[in-house]
C-alpha cells in the first residue's frame, strides 16, 4: 500500500522529511539548552523503540531522534509527552507531539549559574520567551548569551540577546591596582582610563561585559542591581545574504525585549512575501523590504523603554550578497 502522508503537517509536527522514503526524524526542543538528565532516558527510549537507536545533537541545542519509520509517528508523539511536560512546552493537544516547528528552539549559552562571565540566567530567560512565543509556525530564531563574548552566536539570529551589567564604581574601595583598566583595554573595549590613579568609566563606550567587576580584587567595581541586555536583530545564515545582527537596543530590560519579539509576529504576518517558499522568510529580508521605520512601528507597539536604554535609529546590515 502506498503511503499517503501530508508532509506539511508532518513538518509542522517537528518531524523531518528525510532522504530515505518512509523514514522520518523527530526534533526534541529544549528551550535554553538545559534539562534534567533523567530526560535523556526518555530520548533513549524513543530512539531505541521507534527509531534506529541513534540521535543527533542539533545545532539548535535539541535532540533529533533518527531513523523513525512513518508508522511509528503516533507512538513517538505519545512517548514525547513526558519531555514536553517536563520542559513545560506549550502544546495544543496532549499526546500529539509538538504543535509547531516554525519558531525554532530558543538557544542559550550556559549562563550565570555556571559561567563566571555571564550576566544573567540565560536558560530561565529563554524559557520565559519560549512560553510567550511557542507554538508558532512563523520562522523565528531567538538565541540568548550571557555576555558580549557571544558564545551562543546570537548575532546569527533574528533576535539575539546578550547579557550586560552596568558597572558601579566605589572609588573609596579602589587600590589603584589597574586590573580593571588593563582587562578592559586588552580584552574588551577600552572604556576605562586611569585618572589620578583611579579608574574613570566611559559609559558610552562600555558594553557591559562586567570584566572590570570580575577582575576587581576589592569589590570597588560591582554589578548593577538591575540586569541589562543588548538586543541585536536581524542576523541570519543562509544563501542570499548571510549577515550578523546589528545592535538595536543597549541597556534594555527583559520585559520590553519579550514585547518586541512578540510584536514582530504581527509585523511578519502582515509583510511576509505571499509567495515565500514554504511560508518561510528570514525576518531580515522583510525588514529590508519595508524599511526599518515600518518594522519599528510594529515592533515598538506598547514598548516604553527605560530611560537608560539606548535605541539605535538607523541600522545598516552588512554581509556578502550573492
Amino acid at each position, binding site marked *: 500500500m502506498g503511503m499517503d502522508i501530508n508532509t506539511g503537517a508532518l513538518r509542522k509536527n517537528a518531524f523531518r522529511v528525510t532522504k530515505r522514503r518512509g523514514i522520518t526524524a523527530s526534533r526534541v526542543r529544549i528551550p535554553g539548552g538545559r534539562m534534567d538528565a533523567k530526560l535523556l532516558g526518555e530520548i533513549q527510549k524513543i530512539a531505541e523503540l521507534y527509531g534506529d537507536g541513534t540521535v543527533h545533537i542539533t545545532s539548535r541545542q535539541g535532540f533529533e531522534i533518527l531513523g523513525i519509520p512513518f508508522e511509528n509517528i503516533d507512538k513517538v508523539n505519545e512517548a514525547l509527552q513526558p519531555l514536553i511536560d517536563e520542559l513545560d512546552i506549550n502544546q495544543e493537544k496532549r499526546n500529539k507531539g509538538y504543535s509547531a516547528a516554525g519558531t525554532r528552539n530558543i538557544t542559550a549559552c550556559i549562563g550565570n549559574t555556571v559561567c563566571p562571565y555571564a550576566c*544573567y540566567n540565560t536558560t530561565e530567560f529563554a524559557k520565559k520567551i519560549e512560553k510567550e512565543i511557542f507554538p508558532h509556525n512563523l520562522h523565528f530564531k531567538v538565541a540568548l548569551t*550571557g555576555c558580549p563574548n557571544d558564545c551562543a552566536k546570537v548575532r546569527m539570529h533574528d533576535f539575539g540577546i546578550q547579557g550586560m551589567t552596568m558597572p558601579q564604581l566605589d572609588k573609596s574601595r*579602589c587600590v589603584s*591596582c589597574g586590573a580593571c583598566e588593563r582587562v578592559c583595554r586588552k580584552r574588551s573595549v577600552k572604556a576605562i582610563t586611569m585618572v589620578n590613579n583611579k579608574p574613570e568609566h566611559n559609559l558610552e563606550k562600555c558594553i557591559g561585559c562586567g570584566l572590570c567587576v570580575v577582575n576587581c*580584587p576589592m*569589590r570597588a567595581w560591582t554589578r548593577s542591581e538591575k*540586569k541589562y541586555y543588548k538586543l541585536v536583530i536581524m542576523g541570519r545564515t543562509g544563501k542570499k545574504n548571510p549577515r550578523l545582527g546589528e545592535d538595536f537596543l543597549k541597556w534594555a530590560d527583559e520585559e520590553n525585549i519579550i514585547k518586541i519579539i512578540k510584536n514582530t509576529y504581527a509585523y511578519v504576518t502582515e509583510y511576509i512575501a505571499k509567495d515565500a517558499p514554504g511560508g518561510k522568510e528570514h525576518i531580515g529580508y522583510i525588514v529590508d523590504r519595508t524599511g526599518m521605520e515600518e518594522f519599528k512601528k510594529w515592533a515598538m507597539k506598547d514598548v516604553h523603554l527605560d530611560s537608560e536604554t539606548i535605541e539605535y535609529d538607523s541600522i545598516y546590515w552588512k554581509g556578502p550578497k550573492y
Partner: protein
Amino acid sequence: MGYIIENKNLDLLIDKLREDYLVYAPMRYKGQGEFSDTDSIRYGEIKKASDLELEAKSEHTFKEILMPISETLFYYTEDEVKVAEAHNTKEALVFVRSCDLHSLSRLDNIYLNNGFGDFYYKRLRDKLKFVLIGCEKSYDNCFCVDMETNKSDKYAFSIDIRDGKAYFDVQEEALLKYFESVESQKADVSPLYVTENQTRVKLPSPENIDVNFINDHELWREYDKRCIGCGRCNFSCPTCTCYTMQDIFYQDNGKAGERRRVWASCMVDGYTDVAGGGAYRKRNGDRMRFKVLHKVYDYKKRFKDNNMCTGCGRCDDVCPEYISFSNSINKLYDATKGGRDD
C-alpha cells in the same frame, strides 16, 4: 558577666548600642559578589540585627575600618597644608572572629610598636572596641588551630547566636548597662571556639630557615606561572599592612591637591619598582616567597612572640587560581627540613 537575649530582642540591643557607638560587622551585600547573582560578605556599619552576617565567612576583613583602603592624609594648596579629618570620630564596636582579633595585634605591632606610632592609625584605633564572634565550626581553609589563634580571651563582649538566642559574655564593664537595659537573662556564657581544622600546617622553625638556601629554592618556581599577581590574597589578609602614597592634583585646579595612602600588594606589579625602571621581584614566584616568608618567618623574627599569619585562610578562599597559601607553608616546611638534613 553572661547574658542570653532572644533573637527577637536583638534589634533593641543594637539600637541601644548605636546611641553611643558605630557598629561594624560582616554584612551580606546582595548581588555585589564578583560573579552575577552572588553576594559579597564584607564589613559595613550595621543598623539592625538582621544586617549581621554571622553565618558566612567574610571575604574582606575588619582592617578596612582601621586602615581605610584609600585614606586622605592631608590636603595641600600653594604653601598651606591641612591634615584630613578622621573618617569617624565616634567610638565604634567591631565584630570579629578569634583569628581576626589576633590579627589586630599584628596590625598594632606594625603601626604602633615598630618605631614611632602611626598618627592616622592611632586616632582610629583609639576609638575601637572589639566584639568576639564565636566560631561554632571551622570554615573551609581555616587553620587557626595550628596558628594558635582559635581562642581569644580579651574582648569587649562576645556573641554566639544559636537556636534563636544570642549568647553574650560581656567583659567591658562600661557596656554592661546596654545588656541590662533590654530583656535579657543572666547566665554563664563563654564564647564558642573550634579545636580542630581540616586544613593543617606545619610551621618551619625560624632557626631552620637559611634565607640564602630558601631564596633560590625551586619550590617557588611553580608560582611563577600559576600566580597571576592580582593581589587578592593581600587585600583579603587581615594582617597585610602595606600601602603606597599618592599625591593627587585636582583636575580643575592643579594648585590644590591631596596626599593619600592606598593599600598596596606585594603580589601586584609595581610594588618593588625603583627609580630607573628596576624592579626587585619580577617573577610572581619570588613575590610568593617574599609573602610566605614575611607571614611565617620575618615578622616573628622581628616581633618574637607570634607569626604574622593568623590562619584565617581568606587568601585560599579568594585565590582565583586555587593557590593554597597553607599548602605553601607546608612546602616551605618540607623544603627547610630537607635543607637542614642535607
